[in-house]
């Protein structure tokens, strides 16, 4: 019989949250193992995706020197669709094309694999193609995990659950409740290949630079959600995500929504001639602050998507995942070094997160999920108003401008009564401001 090996830290899931947790634990001298069910880290990942430089640098300084990134994002644009029309706004900063950058587009299958290799080089042991099925207990205390393999019990002092949105193990451990349809978005995405020059021409980019485009309103058929197009090196990530509760209510099918989006005149020309290389779907936890489960118990912490740490409004998830992973890795090391694996000791993790943007941002937007759910006009009426107002504004038809302004105002109040408008703006200001 081989002696049973014991680890200090066991991490479930090799996404950004799990890898950040494991790297941090190893850097603090912990013997650390990551168990991932995919064939390799990133194999099952679907992220759009925009990777933010600053939070990632906290894990690996100047990672952009060697990581497989697609393009630095120099422009972020929004388009509100209404019928065939679009109202657009955006911001471009050429300086974002150079270090220290702001964000890059990435293909996670490549990026996660690279990140995992970095983690291995630092001493993290990564076991793939292995599913964690449950926690192992001795009495009430967590003493490891059970995997689906023969002789598959793994002993460890602290378990960090970084298993992503489904969070099956966290649920079994009583740390996570069943997600309601109002707490998750269903996202589908295609990778559409296009020659580099075409991408650069169509998005007005210098060689190698990238852009993001988020589409709202008609893009999601008025449902709570967004569609997106991100530029990769020689492909576009084109996708759409809507709240599951909305999809169910409307009996909408994500594939149809994506096809509809691709056929829209504003989008069609951007992707014309491209070839779909991959199609994938995934859930995004968008319940916000109020849906965050209990994030710790004796010997266990929950990080990343498994802990609902996604800021849907700002399209941020991977950064919250990494920062929460790092915090958990540190707390695990501290707890192990001081021989205190109690629930109280793990609570420090949540306290730390409260001091970071992770929980501060989610707290700030704590009412947003509710706001949008109760006020669908933000995704239906307002894009129409924007588009209609812009159409009048830009239409030259010999009408005196003063009359035109009156006409616009009439159109606006025709779509939404004055009192409602004021109330809407107040609500929006209160939740987002």
């Amino acid at each position, binding site marked *: 019989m*081989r002696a049973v090996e014991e680890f200090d830290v066991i991490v479930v899931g090799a996404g950004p949250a799990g890898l950040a947790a494991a790297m941090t634990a190893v850097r603090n001298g912990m013997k650390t193992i990551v168990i991932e069910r995919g064939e390799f880290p990133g194999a099952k990942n679907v992220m759009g995706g925009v990777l933010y430089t600053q939070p990632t640098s906290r894990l690996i300084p100047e990672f952009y020197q060697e990581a497989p990134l697609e393009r630095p994002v120099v422009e972020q644009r929004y388009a509100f669709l209404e019928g065939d029309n679009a109202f657009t706004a955006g911001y471009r900063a050429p300086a974002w094309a150079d270090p220290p950058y702001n964000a890059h587009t990435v*293909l996670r299958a490549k990026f996660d694999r690279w990140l995992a290799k970095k983690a291995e080089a630092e001493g993290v*042991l990564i076991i793939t193609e292995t599913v964690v099925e449950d926690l192992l207990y001795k009495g009430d205390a967590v003493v490891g995990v059970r995997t689906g*393999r023969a002789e598959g019990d793994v002993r460890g002092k602290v378990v960090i659950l970084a298993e992503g949105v489904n969070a099956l193990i966290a649920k079994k451990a009583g740390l996570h409740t069943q997600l309601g349809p109002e707490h998750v978005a269903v996202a589908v995405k295609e990778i559409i290949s296009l020659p580099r020059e075409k991408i650069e021409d169509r998005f007005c980019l210098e060689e190698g630079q990238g852009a993001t485009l988020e589409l709202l309103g008609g893009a999601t058929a008025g449902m709570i959600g967004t569609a997106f197009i991100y530029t990769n090196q020689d492909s576009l990530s084109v996708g759409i995500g809507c709240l599951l509760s909305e999809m169910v209510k409307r009996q909408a099918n994500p594939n149809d929504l994506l096809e509809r989006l691709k056929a829209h005149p504003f989008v069609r020309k951007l992707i014309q001639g491209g*070839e779909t290389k991959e199609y994938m779907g995934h859930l995004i936890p968008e319940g916000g602050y109020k849906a965050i489960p209990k994030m710790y118990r004796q010997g266990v912490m929950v990080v990343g998507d498994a802990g609902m740490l996604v800021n849907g409004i700002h399209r941020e998830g991977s950064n919250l995942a990494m920062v929460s992973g790092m915090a958990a890795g540190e707390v695990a090391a501290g707890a192990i070094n001081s021989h205190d694996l109690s629930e109280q000791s793990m609570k420090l993790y949540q306290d730390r997160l409260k001091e970071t943007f992770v929980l501060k941002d989610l707290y700030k937007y704590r009412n947003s999920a509710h706001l949008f759910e109760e006020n669908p006009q933000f995704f239906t009426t307002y894009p129409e108003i924007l588009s209609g107002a812009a159409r009048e504004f830009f239409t030259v038809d010999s009408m005196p401008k003063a009359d035109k302004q009156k006409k616009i105002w009439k159109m606006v109040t025709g779509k939404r009564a004055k009192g409602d408008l004021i109330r809407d703006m107040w609500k929006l200001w209160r939740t987002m401001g």
Partner: protein
Amino acid sequence: MHFVVCLKQVPDTSEVRIDPKTNTLMREGVPSIINPYDAHALEEALALRDKAGGKVTVLSMGPPQAVDSLRKAVSLGADEAILLSDRAFAGSDTLATSYILAQALEKIRQEQGIDLVLCGKQAIDGDTAQVGPGIARRLDIPQLTYVIKVDWIKEGEIQVHRKLEDGREVARAKLPALLTVEKELNEIRYATFPNMLRAAKYEPLVWGADKFHLSPAEMGLKGSPTSVSRIFAPPGRTGGEQIMAIDDPGSAAISLVGKLFQQNIIMVHPIARGGRD
């Protein structure tokens, strides 16, 4: 007993997904795998070792990334893994490859003895089925190709079932011998967690061209006379007739000889017929 398995890392053609709409290949993230036939060779070696005792060594020639497949073999239970990797090996055809593998096997044989060498019947990225037989010939050991069942192995001898174009053959050979195997030979096991752990930490031995006896003229591009002029699927064999000889070999032989005469494949010499000339 010492079992040595030759295995090759190949691109996983089954993982190249087809886009349902455009019918194009989606190659993103296509992983490398152990050549499927070789995986069955490994499984058989592991099963024989588990029964008869001894050890399993896996041997692969390839680029440095091929350690991934060797680690995978260790995760399934192989005891030791050796990677033959050197720039000088690049461009080797089946002739040069079987030379390099045979020379490495010769070194292993001298140092620790070998009872059985196992190979897949062919690699899915070339389909030549030449390397296994090439190794056996160079090592001057018996070869049993297209094996679908191993009846038994004991000190000095092995009995197997071979798959023939129609039917099977039961064959016996003296050890050491070389098998090339079919997929129906066995079911591949799942790795146990302790073996996964061992594999994750395992560093295969890496042998460059200076680690064993090799002549530069016989390896790499220099040692590779093959040039592929055309790739096509050969037409199936037609015609022919089978005479079953299991129940009554005597009358089968008589019927065979009769047919050979009828078709003038063999002729009775005029003298034997009683002629005078």
